């Protein structure tokens, strides 16, 4: 098991890197972590008609690299808030289709600098909600599809019992934040490996997504790490 002190340090470093204070994102009271909604309404929307992991990885990469520096900074500061919506991007009416900034075969990404600018889309479509744990996890390697230098990176994801929407939240934050901070480059190849729990972090781990443990809010847990 990863030491709580290590996880706490990683968590606090992640908060500080965004120019925030701990109290902006969580409280620790009565021995329990209580997450808080980060102020602001900058976000991204991902519209899915279907899910394919390679398509998702490449689509997310193209979306991040397509944002200007100011948008990436604002989004990173708000913990890359993202909403996953079910819908068919091919059927979005013309008056809203211009909001779709990145398309793949069955998904689309939308940059939402403020909630009101994408209200029409969020009213038209529905939040992704699924039942039961997502069983479609497969260990595999994907090229992120962008240009520039290329390295091989490993992304480990603790996926035990996660629904698809929970899985995508962790995968999406990890990919996007690593691209924003330069831990990943758009030309990299990423090997995604699924485990029940992350028992240890690689030495000098450049990125770990640390959250309050949903099964025991007295503890923090690493849900992803990149090496």
């Amino acid at each position, binding site marked *: 098991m990863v030491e709580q002190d290590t996880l706490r340090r990683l968590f606090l470093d992640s908060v500080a890197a965004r120019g925030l204070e701990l109290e902006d994102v969580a409280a620790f009271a009565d021995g329990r972590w209580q997450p808080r909604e980060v102020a602001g309404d900058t976000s991204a929307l991902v519209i899915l008609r279907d899910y394919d992991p390679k398509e998702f990885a490449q689509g997310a990469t193209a979306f991040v690299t397509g944002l200007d520096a100011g948008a990436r900074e604002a989004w990173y500061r708000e913990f890359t808030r993202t909403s996953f919506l*079910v*819908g068919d991007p091919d*059927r979005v009416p013309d*008056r809203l289709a211009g909001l779709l900034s990145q398309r793949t075969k069955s998904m689309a990404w939308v940059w939402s600098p403020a909630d009101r600018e994408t209200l029409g889309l969020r009213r038209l479509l529905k939040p*992704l909600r*699924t*039942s039961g744990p997502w069983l*479609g996890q497969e260990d595999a390697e994907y090229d992120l599809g962008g240009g520039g230098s290329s390295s091989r990176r490993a992304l480990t994801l603790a996926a035990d019992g996660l629904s698809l929407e929970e899985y995508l939240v962790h995968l999406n934050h990890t990919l996007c934040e690593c691209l924003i901070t330069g831990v990943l480059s758009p030309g990299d190849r990423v090997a995604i490996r699924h485990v029940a729990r992350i028992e240890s972090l690689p030495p000098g781990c450049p990125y770990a997504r640390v959250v309050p443990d949903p099964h025991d809010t007295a503890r923090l847990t690493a849900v992803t790490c990149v090496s």
Partner: protein
Amino acid sequence: MKLLFYPTHPTATKPLTPSHVKMFLWFDLLVDATSRVIPVTTLANRVTCDVTAQNLGFWHYLDTSFTDDPALYADKDELWVAEQYVRYHAERFAAPPPVLEELRSRVEHDFWIHPASARILELWSEQCRLLGVDERSLHTWTPLPLTVDEALEALADLDVLLDVRGLGGGAYLDLTPEGIALRQLVSEQGVPNYVVHVLRELLAVGPGYDRVVLAFDAEIRHDFDLVASVLRRAGVETVTLPVDRVRLPGVTGTTRAGGFEPYILARIIERFLPTYGLEAFRLGIRMYYVLHVGRRGGCEFDLAMLERFMRKAAAAVRRLNGGEPGVAAPGDLLRELWPQIVPRDGAFVDPNRLLQTLFKQAPESAAARALARELLL
């Protein structure tokens, strides 16, 4: 012209309120009058009405709170059942999805009804007979012609289905190119909702008619507008006929919250039928709901006004019966009146126009008086 009339029905979980009575009277008169000129088929099926998650959940609530033994419910009145219905909602009782699916199967394949609702239907039938409306539709069970998957396939063929069940999600009616929000049809747990069951019937039956009339509580207008859109895509000429609810004095919200007890049909019958007699009661209540309340508009229920119509009806009955109570209405009178009593876009009689026309003609026309007796008394 062959017309299919598709009315929504209340679930048998409460007494008949003024909103229910209004719908019953409007629909009954519309069908009775229209069918004398063109063939009308009424498609009323307890299966579609009873398989909603809300209704099945209530039945499960009764089983877990009390018993499934019919003997308990045999002497219960409507208000007792309604009280449990209010509790069911107040407690936010949620039946497990597998239980809902098991109950749905019993309704669809065995035409099963919970004994509490069977008791309610018994009481409703008696009241409807006094009201003079055709109560056969309360007791009609018909297999749904399409399975859930067949209905969803039909929607896919019409290019209006978004199906993410392969990802563990639900299935949705997708009219987003028209700017209409997705409407969930099947939940993430695999439970289909009532829109699916309505489509299971209408997608199969509707194409056999020249026109389909969907008649429903205006509160569910959005869903029935969607159903109409789907049917039109399937080439079925479809008209929607929403009926606004009747507000009750001092009551906000739906029957889930209670407060309707003094205005239920059983109380109205007790109050007016002994004083005015059956014919005046039937005429008076029709005049009140059709001429005064109207189909649209948020009119508040008014007992004093209803009594005024009962008094007017008592006098009108004497004039309608006159010296010729046994004379039958000429078969072609409605055809002659058709242009006056059918709305511009309609192929069916508007009850409000019908009553106004008959009462205008009745003083001078024995035929009109005879028709009024047949339709209204």
